[in-house]
């Protein structure tokens, strides 16, 4: 695996133009995981409930102890749109932006690939993969999967 600033890294395809994630201390685990191709969730270490967006305290039992857990990467499409005007930064063509309902029971915003806007259906099964960003980071994105 190539790392940032590694002079021996093989020449990469065209430089990614997608905006890098904004990394906060409470969500650093998520983006560190994404950099390694891992799709992680935050789980309370005391009552085992998952939560998103990440936060320093469990709203159920108020524990500040947390575990990072690997998520299945499977979910379904909840809503989807295509920003047309103005064109979003970081894309050659406007992407499909979607809210994905994860198998683990919460939603997040991401992109849908390998499908045309008019073919997307609510509840369509999708799976995670990773897309590169500026600054040698990665973000989780989704594509259709067989049921």
């Amino acid at each position, binding site marked *: 695996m190539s790392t940032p600033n590694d002079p021996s890294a093989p020449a990469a395809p065209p430089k990614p133009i997608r905006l890098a994630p904004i990394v906060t201390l409470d969500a650093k685990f998520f983006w560190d995981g994404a950099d390694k191709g891992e799709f992680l969730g935050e789980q309370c270490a005391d009552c085992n409930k998952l939560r998103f967006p990440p936060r320093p305290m469990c709203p159920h039992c108020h524990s500040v102890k947390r575990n990072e857990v690997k998520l299945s990467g499977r979910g379904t499409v909840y809503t989807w*749109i295509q920003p047309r005007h*103005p064109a979003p930064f970081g894309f050659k063509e406007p992407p499909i*932006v*979607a809210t994905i309902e994860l198998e683990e029971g919460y*939603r*997040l915003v991401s992109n849908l690939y390998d499908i045309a806007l008019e073919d997307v259906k609510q509840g369509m099964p999708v799976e995670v993969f990773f897309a590169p960003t500026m600054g040698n980071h990665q973000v989780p*994105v989704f594509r259709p999967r067989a049921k």
Partner: protein
Amino acid sequence: MARTFREAAIAGIGATEFSKASGRSELQLAAECSKAALDDAGIHPSDVDGMITFTIDNSDEIGLCRCLGVKDLAYTARIPGGGAAAVATIYQAMALVNAGLCNTVLVWRAMNERSQYRFGQPHTQNLGPQAGNGTGSLLWCMPFGAQTPATWESLAAQRYMQQYGVTNEDLGRVAVAQRKYAATNPAAWFYGKPITLEEHQSSKWIVEPILRLLDCCQESDGGVAIVITSLERAKDLRQKPVRIVGACQSIPYNVEVISNYYHADLSMMPEAEGTAKRLYAQTGMKPTDMQAAMIYDAFTPQVLKQMEGFGFCKRGEAKDFVKSGQIDIDGILPVNTHGGLIGEAYIHGMNSIAEGVRQVRGTAVNQVKKVERVLVSSGMAGAIFEKV
């Protein structure tokens, strides 16, 4: 001063012109609209003792005090949540007067939101974790190309539209109704410029397949100010007092201002339903007690969702209510009779609050007949204004 409960009223409203290039500073706009509102009330500017604005207003309280000559400011507060919380400024002003803490509360919002910066363009600057913006999760949208208010709105609106079979044409009827009001309002940017549904349907997609250009509010330069005092004092001032019967806010668990994707069911608005429930409980009133409503219309779906959230229609039925002309001037519930943020100007919802005041006073250019009460909503805050 003695701290006894006092009823609150709106005594003055003021505004600058609404434009796309004001040619002066935001502080000047703030000072001009504040002076206009105080003049409207007949209160000397030096008497202001409370000031409330939005967290994201760029003018400083002390800067504005130095313009107005405010001699002793007793209270300041700023409301987070952008336009969604606009009516919460009135809520706080009411509470201050009720509590006997202030006599003259000035609420203002002034911005060069077209000529100096543009809310409608991608918000890729300054979107790290900042308290006070009111929405915490925009950073979970940025790398995915959801970078404008229109995209954030659309990602939630689609669920509502799918659930109830609302089409973009249904949204278009909201825009047509509001532009009709704006067309006869000389203060509106779109004065004399009504639109047809066909023009709406041929306007370009901003976010496909949810919002077209004509579904979106404007970007505007301008300022609006409102003066709140006790009802008793307001009766002796220059204008007919507008009683604030009640006002409140509701931010249910897991609700955000615009990147609002984390609560259970995106086909409804828990914040509007929560505000409505609290407001009706506080006032003992119900939707049929209102003769008009001013509803925060950053985008057309907001109008339908809030009409349902406040109980003017059952869930999913607002589109038919609009289609049958019920938000027009002679309908059951005229809505955004100044043209709204779509037709008049986008002063972050404050110009719609001012229109609510004019309707109760009986001085609106598109005056609704026999107005006793008006509901004003900005999604997660609401208020009821009443004729005295």
